[in-house]
């Protein structure tokens, strides 16, 4: 130790003359040799300050190496090197400033490793940030900014501020300015700086900003004997309203301003512990099955001095009366509090607006799914007065078609292009087969169609289970549909949902054209309104029924592919949509595209609103939705767009 001290002294003496001229990095290190070799978290500060103040180019790389425990000291002359392991316990020693290799193949045990502990490395890291923030490599700058944003410290203000003017990347510059505003808001030196920073944050939607504002407005629960006053009081709490009386009293007890009094559990334990000859405090044990008797027994024990006395309700009342309970801002500067509260209020208004927008988008996307799922059902019901309980299974069939196509065609985009028409074809065929084999025999018995198609539904479901197994199958969306369109921190919508929305729009347009502009559509509308008259005009209702049923089923197949892209493909997936589809049809009214659209929109909005009001419980949303529908049909028994014709009499 003495030897080392002498050596250091010698080195320092040697170094001093050169210090005036051009001090090298090694010189500075030698000046603080003890601290560098065995740094402590509290004492390493001056060393780093000296290093940073020197402005030498090698400082950042040395700090990095130091922090990474790559620096070694040679015992002979006390010089520091950056060591590089070359295998077999051999090291290459490089100059601390230039990185030039000075000695190779040095045995590891001839040098002493410098091992800064975690606390020191954090200090070094903070010092490094300022170099990294101004580093020519944008990657390094970005990493530094990210590291900084994870832990905002007051001493980062200066380096961050210095690095902003030289920043060339506009995105990074904006981010740095934002972080600076956060830092200023929380740790700014002057009130003006903080208020200015807080004002600049007003209305910002990001979660970070809200967190910073909430940190500035952090409050603390306090008790006082005098009613609180002043700008730091966030909220006065009234016992029994804002805070329960028990909690309030417990807080008083904790502050040492009142006696605790035994809890009911302690009372019981005390009674149990003091049974003497079948009695507790003179009360027979058998009678202790009421609160009054227990209180009597305990009072007797307390009088005898064996247990601490009960705290009477009157005492609790008095203690509560005596004290005021309030939340106090930990921030002491009234102007800052006011500015932060202002900023938070404007942010919250903005957040509310954007949440409303996001909810609207969600509802729209849900509505487009319901529309796709229900429109086929609505058409068949409208034209034929027939409810197809197997509609959900056609959705499932479409989704499985997509899955099988993806097994054959590995390219997701191409497979989707193939799957959509194929799903339509498959379910169109299935629908026509169902109509020909079952439904056309039951036109005069609509309730039995319901049952027969239900039989088909359980059969198809079980068949799918037998073929594809019970576990969910993936239907992967192409890469360009991954991710979300992020508008800001609150409003975002996934591309798949946008795609489904677009698909619903396309279907709406196609159906409107088919129904209103083609011969088939004309005939379909004619049969919907009056099948007998249509038949007399030379329309073959049989053919129209078959085609309509096929069309409705085919759309279900396409809906299945769309739904499969974002939900799991299982044999039971149809069941998840069938009831919603029925509801959509019932609310919207049958046989009209616009009615289905309105129904889907109404149900989508309603469901999302209920989920928003009660976000913890999506099951409740469904319950309320059904209640809503039952009440809705009290007002409009035939749906939003009522239809005259065969279906209206069903």
């Amino acid at each position, binding site marked *: 130790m003495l030897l080392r001290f002498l050596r250091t002294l010698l080195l320092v003496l040697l170094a001093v003359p050169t210090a005036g001229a051009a001090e090298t990095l090694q010189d500075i290190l030698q000046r603080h040799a003890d601290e560098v070799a065995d740094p402590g978290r509290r004492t390493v500060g001056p060393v780093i300050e000296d290093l940073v103040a020197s402005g030498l180019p090698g400082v950042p790389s040395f700090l990095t190496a130091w922090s990474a425990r790559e620096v070694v000291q040679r015992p002979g002359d006390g010089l520091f090197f950056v060591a590089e392991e070359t295998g077999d316990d051999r090291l290459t020693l490089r100059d601390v400033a230039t990185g030039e290799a000075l000695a190779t193949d040095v045995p590891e045990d001839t040098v002493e490793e410098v091992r800064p502990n975690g606390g020191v490395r954090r200090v070094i890291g903070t010092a490094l940030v300022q170099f990294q923030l101004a580093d020519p490599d944008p990657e390094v700058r970005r990493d530094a900014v990210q590291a900084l944003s994870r832990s905002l410290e007051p001493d980062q203000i200066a380096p961050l501020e210095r690095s902003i003017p030289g920043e060339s990347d506009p995105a990074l510059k904006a981010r740095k300015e934002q972080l600076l505003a956060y830092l200023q808001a929380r740790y700014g030196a002057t009130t003006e700086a903080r208020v200015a920073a807080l004002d600049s944050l007003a209305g910002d939607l990001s979660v970070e900003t809200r967190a910073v504002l909430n940190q500035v407005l952090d409050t603390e629960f306090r008790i006082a004997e005098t009613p609180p006053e002043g700008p730091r009081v966030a909220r006065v709490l009234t016992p029994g309203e804002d805070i329960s009386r028990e909690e309030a009293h417990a807080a008083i007890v904790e502050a040492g301003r009142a006696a605790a009094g035994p809890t009911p559990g302690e009372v019981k334990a005390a009674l*149990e512990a003091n049974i003497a000859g079948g009695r507790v405090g003179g009360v027979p044990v058998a009678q202790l099955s009421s609160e009054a008797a227990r209180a009597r027994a305990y009072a007797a024990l307390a009088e005898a001095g064996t247990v601490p006395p009960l705290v009477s309700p009157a005492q609790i009342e008095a203690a509560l009366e005596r004290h005021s309970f309030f939340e106090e801002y930990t921030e002491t500067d009234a102007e800052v509090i006011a500015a932060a509260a202002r900023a938070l209020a404007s942010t919250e208004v903005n957040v509310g607006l954007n949440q409303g927008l996001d909810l609207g988008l969600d509802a729209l996307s849900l509505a487009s799914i319901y529309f796709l799922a229900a429109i086929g059902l609505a058409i068949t019901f409208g034209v034929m007065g027939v409810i197809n309980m197997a509609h959900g299974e056609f959705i499932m069939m479409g989704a499985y078609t997509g899955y099988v196509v993806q097994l054959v065609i590995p390219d997701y985009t191409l497979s989707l292009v193939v799957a959509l028409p194929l799903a339509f074809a498959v379910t169109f065929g299935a629908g026509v087969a169902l109509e020909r084999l079952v439904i056309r025999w039951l036109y005069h018995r609509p309730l039995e169609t319901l049952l027969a198609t239900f039989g088909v539904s*359980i059969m198809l479901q*079980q068949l799918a289970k037998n073929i594809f197994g019970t576990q969910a199958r993936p239907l992967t969306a192409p890469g360009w549909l991954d991710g979300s369109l992020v508008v800001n921190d609150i409003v975002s919508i996934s591309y798949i949902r946008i795609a489904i929305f677009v698909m619903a729009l396309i279907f709406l347009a196609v159906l409107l054209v088919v129904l209103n502009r083609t011969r088939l559509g004309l005939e379909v509308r004619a049969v919907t309104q009056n099948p007998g008259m249509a038949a007399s005009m030379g329309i073959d209702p049989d053919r129209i029924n078959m085609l309509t049923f096929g069309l409705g089923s085919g759309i279900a197949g396409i809906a299945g592919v769309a739904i499969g892209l974002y939900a799991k493909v299982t044999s039971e997936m149809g069941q998840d949509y069938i009831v919603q589809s029925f509801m959509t049809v019932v609310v919207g009214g049958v046989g009209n595209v616009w009615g289905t659209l309105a129904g889907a929109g109404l149900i989508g909005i309603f469901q999302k609103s209920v989920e928003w009001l009660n976000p913890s419980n999506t099951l409740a949303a469904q319950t309320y939705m059904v209640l809503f529908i039952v009440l809705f049909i009290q007002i409009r028994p035939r749906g939003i767009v009522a239809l005259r014709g065969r279906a209206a009499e069903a």
Partner: protein
Amino acid sequence: MSVAAMPSRPVRKRLLEANPSVAWFLAILALFCLGVTALAEATGTGALSTSMIKTLGKTLCLCLVALAMDVVWGYQGILSLGHMAFFGLGGYAIGMWLMYARTEIIVAESLAEAAIPPTPAEIEDAIATQIFGVVGSDQFPAIWAFADSLVLQLAMVVAVPGLLALVFGWLAFRSRVTGVYLSILTQAMTLALSLYLFQNDSGLRGNNGLSGLQNLPGLDAVDQATVSIAFFYASAAALAAGYLLFAWVTSGKMGSVIRAIRDDEARVRFLGYHVESYKLFVFTLTAVVAGIAGALYYPQAGIINPAELAPIASIYLAVWVAIGGRGRLYGAVIGAAFVSLLSSWFTGGGAPDVDLGVYTIRWTDWWLVLLGVSFVLTTLYAPKGLGGLIDVIEARRARRRVGDYGPDKGALRREEGPPQ
């Protein structure tokens, strides 16, 4: 009702005379009970295991709810997809008492060992923690207010399904929701109810449901064999009573109006009948019977959870009735017994696999396919269901008679005389 207001009373036959199936049914049911008694573990040789007795008892309850379904659907033409929900509600109502009373005994036993006797509040808290700990609560929800009283819970068995049916039916019928619309709406009601019960804060233990219902409070000394045969008798008695009740409801004037509503609602309305009242009466009555059937079923099943109320259960109920034959009471009984027993035989692995060489048909996988196909075929080709076979027998016996009396013998005119 309008029956009493009619000035001249038409010929009224005695109930048994008008419904020869009642006597047959009661006789067969009695024979069946005697047979089961002779073979049961507790009362006879023991050839039938306790679980088999329970299955038979449960099947009788299913027959009872199928009867109710048949009246509301086969006779009145409302395809209700909600009667299994009423069934489940009845089960929940009785299950609450069974669970509360049993837990109370257990809690009282464990607290009796404590040094000082518990207060009533402590007992209540301990029961609540015991029952609702599984859903993270230790408070009794408001709907358990009567759970400590068997009488009140028995009243709930009748009142809860009855009130729900009354309110729902009133809302639906007064807005003239009929046909397929009504079916979908009842299905929605069932779905809403089961989704509600799935929530943990519904107060009925969420998807855990109520369990341990097979253990009757205070009867721990009685073995399950005896309990099962007792429930079997109770179920058989309820079925017999239900059959008589519905035979009475569907016969005579009231029955004619109900069937007329099925066949042409508008015409009945024009004739001056208040169609909605008839529909509401039948809907509510059948819901109450379904609730009673559920209250007998679930103590035998031992557990009830919201999945039992799912819409699919009500659809299966319609399947049973359709396969058994609508519009005839014995058809519903035949259908429910046949399909539910067959279903448990197939899905329980009782049926032997069919080896086709390339593929082995395992009935646990293929039973539902078979059921679906046979259901479609029944609907298409045998709308009368299995009960139609009885018509074939009757038609053969009465072959020499001239003319068709129609399906309903209560509708025969006086001068036609009683049918043979």
